[in-house]
């Protein structure tokens, strides 16, 4: 029997108080996520249970019990406090998926800091944009990423502390840089956690939009309520599970369900800190007898490409429950997973802003391959008209809208309350995704309602890439769109007009790709560049991305009455 029981009956008797009660939380109590994921689990008699099984790319394996994780998080919290960092300070985690990343996240929360995880693949430009906006006070990183931090630190007056978790002493550290070794520090057995209340800020995740710079979605410690109960009901986590969430904590899935949801449920989880290879992924599941697997459509489709034979080379019989997140899971992938694993991947839908799963498929509920599923119990969702933002009838495409008030909802965009408020219309939070609802109440994803590119489950803002492209000496102007892709859903495509004196060539193509990859991130790197003489613009000079996209996909261009120039 699944934890959720029957979805239909759970809809009738659900309230968030179920989660509050299970977590022994009452309104007004202290609710520090760091404490809930470590100390509380130890008090429940699980201190010797494995919390983390970690495997690095060279094959080394490290295992930590909940008690060891508790002490490591304490030690980091104590260290950060000792540096003079205080509650409310934004502390960035800029690391690969090392154990220190996970313990650091919990340690930051324990001392009352606001954890700001960023992808370690980010280049200096992506990094400075997010650190500057957040006024980040400290960054925890590895020596392999230190040079990127050094390139920008002088432009970040708020950044006072750079903590290197694996400093080897080969090159001298500079002012503001300190070496920290979790295994060598004096363990802090008891640490007085910061008495976080429900609305105390916890995590700041940056997300990209159509225009402007990335925005920091601010979450609070009360998000635990949603994350705990949705991990229990959707991921169906049980005490004896071995859980693998493949997401990087630079992405909200990697924190909401790669840290908080799983460990608040006291579940053992695995982390593979290595790049994607079908052989090593299947080997990892077999080696650690993974039972619950939460991954992304891009990875699932990449596994599909590798074929069925490689699956048969591994004993994957431990798997009992599979879920997917990041972008719509196509029906073919669901059918394929049933064929090769004997289990369907259940699609789940949510966003950085929602903080927890809001629409999903559930254990025991009939799966309609290709559907997003139904709203999570306690979530009131609908589809609203594109213009009036009023709920619309069954089968009609509109915008997914959620009634505000669920525990993990973001509380603001950091220093951008105006944009935050603009997301709420007619009493609904407007997700920015188009969908329809069928006669059985299932949601069907149609696409984004803006120009944001969803590549491999990650949102990339075209404006940020266009701005960076302009910094290349050869680029006069550019327009960036998401080009449909069979594996990544979309990939970044750039249309570029070169400055006089530069001619299109393979070499300049490669140079521009690498320029963006290093400046922003591999995700933002155009996978394809098309050189054009000029770009379609409105009379006010704004590049019309929808025209570029329509031209790329062969769709109707629509109203181009505001177009300044011919195509």
């Amino acid at each position, binding site marked *: 029997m699944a934890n959720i029981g029957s979805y239909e009956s759970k809809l009738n008797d659900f309230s968030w108080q179920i989660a509050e009660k299970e977590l022994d939380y009452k309104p007004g109590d202290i609710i520090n996520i760091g404490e809930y994921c470590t100390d509380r689990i130890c008090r429940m008699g699980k201190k010797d249970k494995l919390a983390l099984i970690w495997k690095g*790319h*060279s094959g080394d394996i490290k295992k930590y019990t909940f008690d060891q994780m508790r002490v490591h998080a304490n030690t980091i919290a104590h260290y950060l406090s000792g540096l003079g960092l205080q509650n409310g300070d934004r502390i960035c985690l800029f690391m*690969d998926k090392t154990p220190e990343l996970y313990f650091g996240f919990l340690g930051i929360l324990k001392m009352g800091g606001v954890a700001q995880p960023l992808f370690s*693949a980010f280049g200096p430009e992506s990094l400075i944009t997010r650190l500057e906006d957040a006024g980040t006070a400290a960054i925890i990183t590895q*020596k*392999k*990423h*230190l*040079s*990127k931090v050094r390139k920008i630190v002088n432009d970040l007056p708020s950044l006072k502390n750079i903590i290197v978790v694996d400093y080897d002493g080969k*090159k001298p550290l500079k002012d503001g840089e300190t070496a920290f070794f979790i295994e060598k520090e004096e363990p802090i057995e008891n640490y007085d956690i910061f008495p976080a209340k429900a609305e105390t800020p916890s995590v700041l995740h940056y997300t990209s939009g159509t225009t402007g710079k990335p925005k920091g979605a601010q979450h609070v410690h009360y998000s635990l309520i949603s994350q705990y109960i949705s991990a229990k009901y959707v991921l169906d986590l049980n005490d004896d599970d071995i859980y693998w969430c493949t997401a990087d904590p630079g992405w909200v899935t990697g924190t909401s369900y790669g840290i908080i949801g799983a460990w608040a449920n006291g579940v053992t989880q695995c982390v593979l*800190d*290595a*790049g*994607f*290879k*079908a*052989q*090593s992924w299947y080997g990892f599941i077999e080696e650690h007898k993974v039972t619950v697997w939460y991954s992304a459509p891009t990875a699932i489709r*990449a596994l599909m490409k590798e074929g069925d034979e490689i699956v048969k080379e591994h004993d994957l019989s431990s798997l009992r429950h599979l879920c997917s997140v990041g972008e719509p899971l196509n029906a073919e992938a669901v059918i394929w997973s049933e064929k090769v694993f004997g289990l369907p991947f259940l699609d789940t839908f949510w966003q950085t802003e929602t903080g927890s799963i809001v629409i999903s498929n559930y254990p025991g509920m009939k799966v309609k391959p290709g559907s997003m599923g139904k709203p999570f119990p306690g979530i009131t969702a609908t589809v609203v008209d594109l213009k009036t933002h009023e709920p619309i009838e069954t089968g009609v495409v509109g915008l997914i809208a959620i009634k505000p008030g669920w525990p993990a909802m973001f509380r603001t965009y950091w220093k951008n309350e105006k944009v935050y408020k603009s997301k709420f219309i007619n009493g609904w939070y407007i997700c920015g995704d188009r969908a329809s609802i069928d006669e059985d109440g299932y949601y069907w994803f149609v696409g984004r309602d803006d120009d944001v590119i969803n*590549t*491999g489950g990650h949102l990339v803002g075209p404006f940020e890439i266009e701005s960076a492209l302009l910094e290349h000496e050869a680029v006069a102007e550019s327009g960036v769109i998401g080009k449909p892709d069979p594996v990544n859903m979309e990939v970044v495509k750039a249309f570029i007009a070169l400055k006089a004196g530069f001619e299109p060539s*393979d*070499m300049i*193509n*490669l140079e521009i*790709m*690498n320029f963006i*990859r*290093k400046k922003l991130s*591999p*995700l933002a*790197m155009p*996978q394809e560049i098309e050189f054009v003489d000029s770009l379609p613009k409105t009379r006010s000079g704004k590049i019309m991305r929808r025209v570029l996209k329509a031209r790329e996909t062969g769709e109707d261009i629509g109203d181009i009455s505001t177009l300044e120039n011919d195509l």
Partner: protein
Amino acid sequence: MSDIKNAILDYIKNEYLEEEDEDDINFDTPLISGGIVDSFSMVSLKVFLEITYKIQLPDSKATPEAFDSVNNIYELLNEFNVQ
């Protein structure tokens, strides 16, 4: 042989590694599974190989396994008569 391998290794060091790590890789170092080159960055590595060695690598050949070390890439290039 070693000229080609060295050229690829130098390119990877220059383009994908930070200064601190440049001494740490060799012809056998796992590039994809080792997290040095991710699936998105594989595209620019593929473009580099195509431009440098004047070949067209079909997507079916440009797999994470084929790109997982300099030695693997060299073997792939051999299939296209690059020696």
